[in-house]
C-alpha cells in the first residue's frame, strides 16, 4: 500500500519553516542563557556562565535573543492576522470541539478501551496544544521578560511587586516551556515510533502522501477532493507552496 504513494504534499510555507527555524534557534539560546540564571547557585550553571563570558554577557545574550524572539512572534501574529483579514487562509489552528473528542478517542485507543482511531485534519489536537502552548507561554515570557528588562519603566504604572512576581513567572514559565519542548515536542517530532528518528516536514516543508493519509486523513481527503482525483500529489504540492495556503491558524 505504501509503495503506491510516493508523492509529497507541501505542508509548510517557506515563511513558516523560517519562523520555526528562528524560534527553534532562539529558544535554544534563551534556554542556554536562561537556565544558568535560574539555577545560578549550581556548579554547572556557574561553569556555563563563566564560559559564556560572565553574567553580564549572558544577560545581554538572553535579552537580545528575547527581543529577536519577540520580533518573530510579532511578525507571525501580524502576518497571520493580515492573511485572515485578507481571507487568504482558514483558521486551521483554532481548537474546536472535535479536538476535545479526538483527545478522548485517542486516549481510549491508547488505553485499549476501543480500536477506533481519531481522524485528524490539518493539525491534530496535540499539535494545536503545542502551538497554543507556545503562543500563551511566549506571551507570558515576553511580557514578564520586558518587565524584568525595564523594571523602573513598568513600576511607573504598576505596583513594584509586579517585578518579583514577573521574575517568578518568567523563571517558572521558562522551565515549563523547556519541559514541554523536551518531553512533548522531542517525543512527537523525534522519538515517537510514528516519526522516529526525525519528522523533517517543518524543515523540508513536505509531507509524504502516505503520512498525510495516515496522520491527517481529513486534510488529505479535503485536498484530494479539491484538486480532483486526477491531480498528482506533486501538482498539489506546487499549488500549495505558491499560495500561502498551508497555514497554521487555518481550518474550516
Amino acid at each position, binding site marked *: 500500500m505504501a509503495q503506491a504513494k510516493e508523492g509529497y504534499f507541501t505542508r509548510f510555507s517557506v515563511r513558516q519553516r523560517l519562523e520555526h527555524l528562528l524560534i527553534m534557534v532562539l529558544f535554544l539560546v534563551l534556554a542556554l542563557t536562561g537556565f544558568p540564571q535560574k539555577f545560578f547557585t549550581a556548579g554547572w550553571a*556557574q561553569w556555563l556562565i*563563566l564560559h559564556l563570558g560572565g553574567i*553580564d554577557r549572558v544577560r545581554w545574550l538572553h535579552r537580545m535573543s528575547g527581543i529577536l524572539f519577540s520580533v518573530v512572534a510579532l511578525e507571525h501574529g501580524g502576518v497571520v492576522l493580515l492573511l485572515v483579514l485578507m481571507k487568504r487562509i482558514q483558521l486551521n489552528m483554532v481548537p474546536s470541539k472535535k479536538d476535545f473528542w479526538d483527545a478522548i478517542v485517542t486516549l481510549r485507543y491508547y488505553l485499549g478501551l476501543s480500536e477506533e482511531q481519531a481522524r485528524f485534519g490539518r493539525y491534530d489536537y496535540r499539535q494545536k496544544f503545542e502551538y497554543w502552548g507556545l503562543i500563551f507561554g511566549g506571551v507570558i515570557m515576553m511580557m514578564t521578560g520586558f518587565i524584568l528588562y525595564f523594571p*523602573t519603566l513598568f513600576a*511607573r504604572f504598576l505596583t513594584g511587586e509586579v517585578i*518579583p512576581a514577573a521574575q517568578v*513567572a518568567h523563571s517558572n514559565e521558562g*522551565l515549563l516551556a523547556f519541559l514541554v519542548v523536551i518531553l*512533548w515536542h522531542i517525543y512527537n517530532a523525534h522519538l515517537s515510533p510514528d516519526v522516529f528518528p526525525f519528522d523533517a516536514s517543518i524543515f523540508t516543508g513536505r509531507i509524504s502522501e502516505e503520512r498525510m493519509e495516515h496522520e491527517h486523513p481529513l486534510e488529505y481527503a479535503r485536498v484530494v477532493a479539491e484538486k480532483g482525483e486526477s491531480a498528482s500529489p506533486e501538482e498539489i504540492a506546487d499549488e500549495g507552496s505558491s499560495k500561502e495556503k498551508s497555514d497554521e491558524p487555518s481550518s474550516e
Partner: protein
Amino acid sequence: MTMDAQKHQPMGWLIGAVVGALFLLLPAMLLAAESVSPEVQFCLNCHSNKTLELVLQSGEKRSLYVDVDSFARSVHGDKLRCTDCHGDISTFPHPTRSFKNLRQFTLAYYESCKGCHFDNYTKSLDSVHYAILSKGDLRAPLCVDCHGAHDVAPPAVPRSRVSRTCSRCHQEVYRRYARSVHGKVLLQDGNVDAPVCADCHRSHNIEDPRTVVFHLKTPELCARCHTDEKLMAKYGLSTNVLKTYLKDFHGMTASLHKREQITPSAVTAVCTDCHGVHDILAVKDPSSTVMKANLVRVCQKCHADATENFPAAWLSHYEPSPKRAPLVYYVKLFYQIFIPFVVLGLVLQILLHIWRVVVNR
C-alpha cells in the same frame, strides 16, 4: 681600722651591704619597675633622663626618654630587653646613627617587630597601608603607630580601643561610625557584640575597601554576624538577610561577579549600598536609608528613573507569603501546581502511546 671595725662590728658590715645593695637597686626601685630585667635597668641609667634627646637632620628633636613605668606595664615589660628591639645598639657608647627626620627614625625600627611577630608582619605586607608606604607615602601607619612602642598594650582591651586607634587617622569615618547603630551600642552602651573597624577591615592585612573585589565581598562580611542565629536572636534580627539577598537579582549578580574575577561593567548593590557603610542605622530608625519613606532615594542611586512604586519590587528580605507579597506568593504557588500537572499529563500520554504501539505489535 676599718677591717677591725668590720671584724668587731659584724652588724655594721651587714647594714653597709644592705644599704649598698639598696643604693645599687635604687633607680629601678624608685621607678617601680620590679619586673623589668637588669639589662633594661642598665639602659635606664641614661634613658630615664627626661631631657635626653636626639636632634635630627631636620632639626626635629626626638626624646630618648623611656618611661619605665609604662614599659613595665606593657605586654613586653616582663619579656623583652631593650636590645631585643634595638639590636643595633648593644654597646656603649652607642654607634653613631643619623636620621633625616622623625618619620625616618620610626621607619628605621619598623622591622624590629617581625623578629617575633612574623605572621602579623607578613600580613601587613598585604595591607593597603603597606601599599601606600611602598609607594613612598610615609604617612602610612607602621606597627608602632597603632600599637605604641614602649607602651604596647593589648590592642582590644577594651574593645572600643581598636576603633579609637584607627580614629587617630580616620577621624571622619570614626565620627560616622560613632553615630551608627554599631558604634553607638559599643561606645555608649559598651556592648561588645558590635563590630569595631578591624572586624570588617581586618587588622594587619587591611584591604583597600574602594576596590570592586572588596565591594563584592561585603555581603560575606556582614553575614559573619548577621547569619549568626544566637547573636541575632539577642537583638530580634532576622538571619535570612543573606539568603534572601543572594536569591534576588542583586545578590545573584554580586555572587556571580565575584566568581568571575572580571571587572564588571557596573557594580551591583551590596548590603552597604542600601544600608549605609559606617553610618549604618537600625532599620527601625526613622532616618535609616532603608526606611520605606527613604528607600526610593536609595534605589535612585543606581536606578535614576525609579519612582515611588519601584522600591516595592524589593521584598525587604522577606520570603513571599500570602501576607507579604501575595502576588509573588500566588504566582509561585500556581506554578508549583501547574508545572507537575502539565508534565505528568504529557508523560502519561507519551507512556500510553508507547504502550499501545508495543501492544499493537
